[in-house]
Each structure stands twice: as C-alpha cells, then as structure tokens.
C-alpha cells in the first residue's frame, strides 16, 4: 500500500526532513489528511503522527486477502487401514514422553501386527524420532499409512520413507538407503542381493564396498563363494579383510578347507587299549605339523597367545601352539569333527570337554559361526561353561533354565548374561535378575531399565514392589530405580492391553 509506504519513508528520515506528498489516498482519507494539515495549532510531528494513525487504521481495516485459485491440490490418499484406538494413542504419547525406544518399538509392533495406523496428529513426532533409527523406521513406515507417506514427500528430513522402487533406490539412492535395501533383499532373496552387488561392484568406492559387503553376513552360503573368493585380490585391505571374515564362516571356502587340513593333522583322537585290553584309553592329540602354511596368519589367525585375545581358554599355561589350534577349531564347522573322530556329534562334544576342556569353547563358537544350531543341545550339559554365542537360540524356557543353572551362585554374572538376551525373559529369570539389580543399583540404574525393558515380562509387575535391596544403604537408590521400572512396565502392560482389548 503506497500511502503506508510513504508513512514509513517519512518515519525513516524523520519529520525534520522535507516529506514527500502521501500518495494514493482515497478521497475520504485525503479529506481527513487535509483537515489535519490545515490545523494551525498542530506542529509538524503531530500532523505526521495523526495522519500516520489514520492511514494505519485505513490499512488494517482495508485488508484484502490475497487470492490464488490455481494452487495444485496436494492431498493425502485415503487410508485403507483403520486407525489405532484412542487408548493406544494415549499410551503412545506417554511412551514418547518417556523417550523410551524399546517401548516405542513394542507399541509399533503391536500396531503393525493388528494392521492399524498411527493417528495423524502424532506422525511428525514419531517420524522425527525414528529418523536414522533402523529398528524403528520400517515399523513407522508401516504404521504411518498414506498420511505418513504424503508427509514424507513434503518434508525432506523424513526422506527415509521410501517412495521409489527397489531398483531405483539401488541405482540412485543414498549410501545408507542402498545398504538398508541390500540388507532387506539379502534377508528375503540372498542370491539376488549378491548378484546386485556383483553388478555394481566395480563402480562402488572403497567405503561403500566395505559396508555393502557386510550385508552378506546374513544368509551366507556356498553360493557366495565364487564372488567372495574373487575379492581376495581386492586392493583395499579393509574390503579384503571383510571378504576373508565372510569366507571363514562358509563351509567349503578355501580358507575353511585350509584350516580343516591343518586340524586334520593336528587334532587326532587316539584310542589305546589299556588294562590288558579290557579298557580303551581315549585321548586327543593336539600338535601342529612341523611346517604350518604361513598363509593362515594372513587370514586373521594370531600367531602369539596374548591374554586379551583368549576367550574361554585357561589363561595360564597356554602356549602359542594351543592358541593357534584354538582359533582354528573356532573357524571350522563342528560337523568336521564327526568325520575326523568318526563318532556322533554328542560324543564329539563329550570328548572335547573331557580330554581338551579348553577347546570345547572353540567348538561352541563354531556352532554359532556356522549356524549348526542342532549341536546346541550337546553343550548344555558342559559343566561350568556358558555358551553365550548360541544361548539365545534356545527355546525361551530352556534358555532361562540354562542361565539359571549355570549362574546359580553368581548373581552378577547372571544379570550380566541375562541382559544380553534378545527375547523376553520368563517370570522366574526376570525376578532373579531384578533381585540381582536391587543389590547393585548403581550399576543397574534407570538407564539399564530403559534399555532392557523389552526383556522384562509384565507378569512380574505385581511382584516387583516386594523386591528390595539386601543392603539397607542401597535401598533408597534401588527404590527410585524400581519405581521407574514399575512405570515402564505399566506402560508395557497398557500397550499390550490397548491392542488386545
């Protein structure tokens, strides 16, 4: 509005300077302005202020909205799934206020399993929260419906909502998007993931190669061998190391074969007659061949025993030779020993436990590395040894009993081990773990509860109130942690109730 611009221009310079004529005044306002100008009793500041006040009100009263009828209509598609119930939305707001990711994940899982959607009002907060969180974002995408997808197109910070085909992402996506896509494909169609990677391998830079290669760890199989073996000549050391790491975990690879060959000569089951042939004396010979192929030390086998690298081996009296054998056993499939010893799997474990106790841990590691989980059962009765590599693969009740049995006398180890579980504990284990936490509330604090609330079953909610620290001095600290635990567990209970009503 030109009249107002004139007022501002005069205000900028000050009324001491000659003012330009006020432009574009409508007749009624011009009459008032003239009347002000012709009032002799007013000084020039007052004349200016009075005219400015009139034009100010003329401006704010004469406001005409700006009209634009040709803006493109941008609407979200209709939802095909129902929204979650209000009560679930209320719990979600509580969870967001607690800023607890495990509970948020549980809520989203429940919502997704029931084929329901987040209410629109909460979408921005949830989308902000799940950005960069690979665990939450797929669930958020699923529970956000078409409203979420629509929002993601409007706000670049929510670009994790995929609006392209897999092929498009693979060709043009960001490194993170491509890695996530390859992970997804590797889970469902492992060969396709490898083929895609092979096709673009030459064009990838070293950093991308390393990260993309890591995705092949899932569902690895002998079909990957030709590609992985070809990577042993890669220039980049890190890429080569990753390829070796993968090859070491696939039966039949050149590296595994080489290890097997050395072990075939080194670990020999010996059966000798004793007591005039009435008994058989069994022993396991552990001795490296005179000449060991130096190549194995280029595949990650350490030459010298050092305490920090020893896992599961008695740390004293461990020679370099034993240490090398321990590592090699850990990198060959357990089924190798069935052929080598010519005994069934159960007996392999029994022999290792009985005659080379140190090495049974390495066989256990190999079970997890080569996914030969049918062997697990034979390790459960190995005394005083906990095989954390595969404990989580056991059925829940068996896992709990295993942990409770092994750590019967060591509460702190029990808590420590239980916190590594991936699936929810049973009530019995949970109560034992919480009691252990109560006695060590500075170590197991609110942070621990926040991270591991997913493991604690709601079945113990009513019993937690009675769990107290054995040391009186620790009780006030534990009471605070316990109250926090009760709150989070209540939210967990409410979440399950809201979706299962």
């Amino acid at each position, binding site marked *: 509005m030109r009249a107002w611009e004139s007022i501002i221009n005069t205000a900028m310079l000050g*009324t001491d300077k000659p003012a330009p004529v006020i432009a574009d005044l409508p007749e009624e306002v011009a009459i008032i302005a003239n009347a002000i100008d012709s009032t002799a009793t007013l000084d020039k500041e007052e004349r200016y202020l009075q005219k400015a006040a009139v034009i100010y*009100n003329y401006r704010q009263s004469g*406001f005409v*909205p700006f009209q634009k009828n040709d803006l493109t209509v941008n609407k*979200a598609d209709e939802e095909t799934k129902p929204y979650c119930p209000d009560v679930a939305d209320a719990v979600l707001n509580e969870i967001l206020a607690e800023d607890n990711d495990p509970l948020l994940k549980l809520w989203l899982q429940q919502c997704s399993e029931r084929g329901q959607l987040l209410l*629109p*009002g909460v979408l*921005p907060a949830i989308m902000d929260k799940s950005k960069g969180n690979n665990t939450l974002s797929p669930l958020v995408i699923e529970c956000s419906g078409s409203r979420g997808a629509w929002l993601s197109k409007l*706000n670049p910070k929510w670009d994790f909502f995929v609006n392209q085909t897999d092929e498009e992402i693979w060709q043009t996506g960001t490194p993170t998007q491509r890695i996530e896509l390859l992970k997804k494909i590797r889970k469902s169609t492992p060969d396709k993931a490898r083929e895609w990677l092979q096709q673009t391998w030459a064009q990838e830079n070293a950093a991308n190669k390393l990260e993309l290669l890591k995705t092949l760890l899932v569902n690895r199989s002998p079909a990957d061998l030709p590609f992985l073996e070809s990577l042993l000549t890669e220039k980049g050391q890190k890429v080569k190391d990753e390829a070796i790491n993968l090859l070491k975990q696939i039966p039949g690879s050149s590296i595994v074969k080489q290890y097997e060959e050395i072990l075939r000569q080194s670990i020999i089951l010996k059966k000798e007659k004793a007591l005039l042939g009435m008994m058989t004396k069994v022993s396991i010979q552990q001795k490296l061949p005179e000449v060991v192929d130096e190549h194995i030390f280029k595949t990650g086998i350490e030459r010298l025993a050092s305490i920090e690298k020893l896992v599961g081996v008695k740390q004293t009296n461990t020679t370099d030779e034993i240490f090398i054998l321990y590592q090699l056993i850990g990198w060959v499939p357990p089924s190798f020993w069935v052929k080598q010893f010519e005994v069934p799997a159960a007996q392999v474990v029994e022999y290792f436990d009985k005659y080379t106790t140190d090495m049974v841990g390495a066989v256990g590691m190999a079970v997890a590395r080569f996914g030969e989980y049918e062997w697990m059962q034979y390790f459960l009765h190995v005394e005083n040894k906990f095989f954390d590599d595969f404990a989580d693969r056991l059925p829940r009740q068996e896992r709990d009993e295993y942990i409770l049995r092994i750590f019967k006398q060591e509460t702190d180890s029990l808590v420590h081990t239980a916190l590594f579980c991936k699936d929810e504990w049973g009530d019995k284990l949970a109560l034992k773990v919480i009691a252990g936490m109560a006695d060590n509330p500075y170590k197991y604090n609110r942070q621990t509860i926040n991270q591991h609330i997913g493991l604690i079953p709601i079945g113990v909610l009513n019993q937690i109130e009675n769990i107290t620290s054995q040391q009186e001095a620790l009780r006030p600290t534990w009471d605070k942690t316990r109250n926090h635990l009760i709150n989070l567990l209540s939210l967990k209970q409410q979440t399950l109730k809201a979706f299962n009503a």
Partner: protein
Amino acid sequence: MQLTEDQIYALAPDEASKKAGRDLANPAKWVSKGINEQALWGECQGSGSKPYQTQVDLSAIAFKCSCPSRKFPCKHGLGLMLLCARQPGLFATSAMPAWVNDWINKRAEKEEKKVEKAGEKSVDESAQAKRQQAREQKVSAGITELMVWIKDIVRGGILTIPEKTPAYWDNMARRMVDAQASGLAGMVRNLAGTNFWNEGWQSAFMDKLLQLYLVAEGYNNIQNIDPDLQQDLRTTIGFTTNQEELRAQTGVRDTWLVIGKESRDEQQLTIEQNWLYGLKTNSYALVLQFTVKGQILPLAFSPGMYLDATLVYFPSTVPYRAIVKDYNIIRQTDTSAVQTFAGWQQVAGYETTLNSRLPFRSEMPVVVTSLTPVYYQKQWWLQDGEGCLCKISAAYTNIWQLVAISGGDPVTMTVIGKENEYRPLGVWHQNNYKSI
C-alpha cells in the same frame, strides 16, 4: 470427571510436574481413592510415613494436597486426575471421607463469605475520588512526557532506533510506571521488543508506535469521546476496573469452549491468557489471570474444555476481556452448529468492523471453517474455500502437526492474528477440539 488426559496435562505448571504426575498415575501408588459428583480424592504413598491426602474439587477444578510441594497443582493432584481419566473403573463412587468433606464445605463457606463481604464493603467515596483525581493528574503528566518522547522519535527518524540502548526504552517505561500508567509502560517495552533483525521491522515498529500514540492522544481528549471508548483507553493505560462491580452484573451465560491457553512471564508476573468461545452467542472472550511465582491460580482451564459459565465483559466498544462469574465444567457438547467464519473475506470484514470501533485493539481469535495449510512461495499459508490465502506466522512451531492432521483437506480451526498473518490455536479433529 469430564477432563481428557491432554486437558489434565495442560493444567501442569511445568514439564517436570507433567512427568512426575504421569509416574503417579499408577494404581499401585494410591492407598485409597474415590470419586463423586463434587470431588475426586485419593491417598498417595509418598516418602513419608503417612500417605499424602490429595483432593480435587471437580466442579471448579481446584486442588488440595497435604504434600509439601509449592507447585500447583502438585504431582499428586495431576497423577490422581490422570489415573481417573485413564482408568475410571478404578474409582468407586462413594461418600466423601471426612477430610474431603471438610475441605469442600470450607470452600463453599468461603465463597458465601466472599459474596457477603462484597455486599458489606463500605467505600469512602470522597477519599476514593481524591485518589482517583491524583492518579489522573499523574497519568496526564506522564502522557505529556510520553508525547514529547514519541515526537522526538518521529522528528529524528527511526533509522537509528535499532541502535538505542536498553536504557533508552527502560527509562521511559519506568517513567510510565511512576506515572501509574502500567499499560503504557508495557506498550513501551513492547516497542523495545520489536525484532529489529527482521526485514520490514520498520512497519512493525510504526504499528506499535502509532498504537501508543493513539492511546496517549486519545487520553488527552478523553472528555470528548464515547464512554465505552473512554473505558478502553483507561484500561489500556492501566486503570483497573472494579471486578466486584463487574461480578454484580448479569453477564453472558453460554456454553464456552476453551479454544486456547498461553502463559508468558512479564517482569515478576506470570500472565495466563485463556481464550473462550461462546457456542450459542458466537462470541469470543479473553480471561486473564495474573500470578506471581508459586501463587495459586483461581481458574484451571485447558483447551478443549467445555464450561457452562457466565462471563462478564469489561466495558469496551469491542467487548473481549472478561471475568468468569461462575462456571461448571460440562461434558463435550455437539459443536456442529458452531457459527464460524466461512473464509478470509468474512474475517477481513469482521476485523474492519472491530478496527473502526477500536483501532488500538489487541489481536483476537476467530474460528474459521475449511482452512487448508498450503505451501506456496517457500512459506506456509492457510487457504480458504474461495482460494484466499493468509500467512501462517513464522513463529508458529507446530506446522507439521497441523499439516498431518489436515492431510491436505480443509479443517475448521481457531486462529489469532491480524491482517494477513495468523497463528493457529486449535483445530477440530474427529469431533474433538485439539490445541495445536
């Protein structure tokens, strides 16, 4: 109880109280609990040997708790209300225990006494007139100085205004306080608060300066103007209105929806603004509450709350600020018949009428139907059904929530602002009013 969880959270004095209240919304924390039409009560096991006795007057949402907290409402009050809102089945309807009964009765007695006292109060009218005259003289003297100051600004030009030191503004604001014109002092401070970094600050600054001039010059000519406008000038300058006299008036009875609530700190005062909309009378009201830290607010409103209430407006050419004479919180009412503005043209017409009556008025909310948030020329606008656009204030932070709720469809919403820039206060979504 009629309140939703959102409404209860809106009563919390701060974020920490919200969180603590949430933690206490757990049945295990409450040794006993009960509810009836008048009150909600419970005993919460705290760190002490005896449980805290928490009680809520449901007719007026007033709290009392035996805990030592200075916050109001305390975490126990919030926790108890949240628990009741979430799991009403846990609260058996029963007779009030003695400690609740005593408090409810005392509150009723106090109200009665207040009314009686108001009736009994005798006023020394001549002394009051003398005081009034002395004050008017002080205000006039202050305004004379203020006019000189304003003229100095326009004479020298506003180009160098952003370089002025805080003392420049503070001195004049203090002078206005000395002249017993606290309203003018606030306007001077508001002038100093102009964002001089913004492009176009000159226009925003001149708007405020001219409002100040209009009030000051209007007061100089107060004898010649309409009585209601005289009241507007006096209120804006800082003269108080006798609330007892207001309370004695009939007022406007209606079903009022709380459409917005905001608090701001000014000096050592917290000013709480509650915007209400009368569903039957199609009128807007602003209820202000002033508190110093730790003081209890007499009214506890939260957006989305429906009140069956009588409001008395302060005398004005544009009745807007009001006091609540009496109220009851009621269940959600059907709002399908709410008379809203159809679009920006209508809003512009309405604002023009208001500006013609009171050119220095403050921003007022309006309920507008069918507004769609649209992104155009690198900023967000609200577009009405006719294609007219008004900007969404850049200071508005919940734009994405608004966009998510709308989904590109028009929604009915409450906005506050003027001319072509507005800030959303709340939106109707799935038959509920939601503050955004």
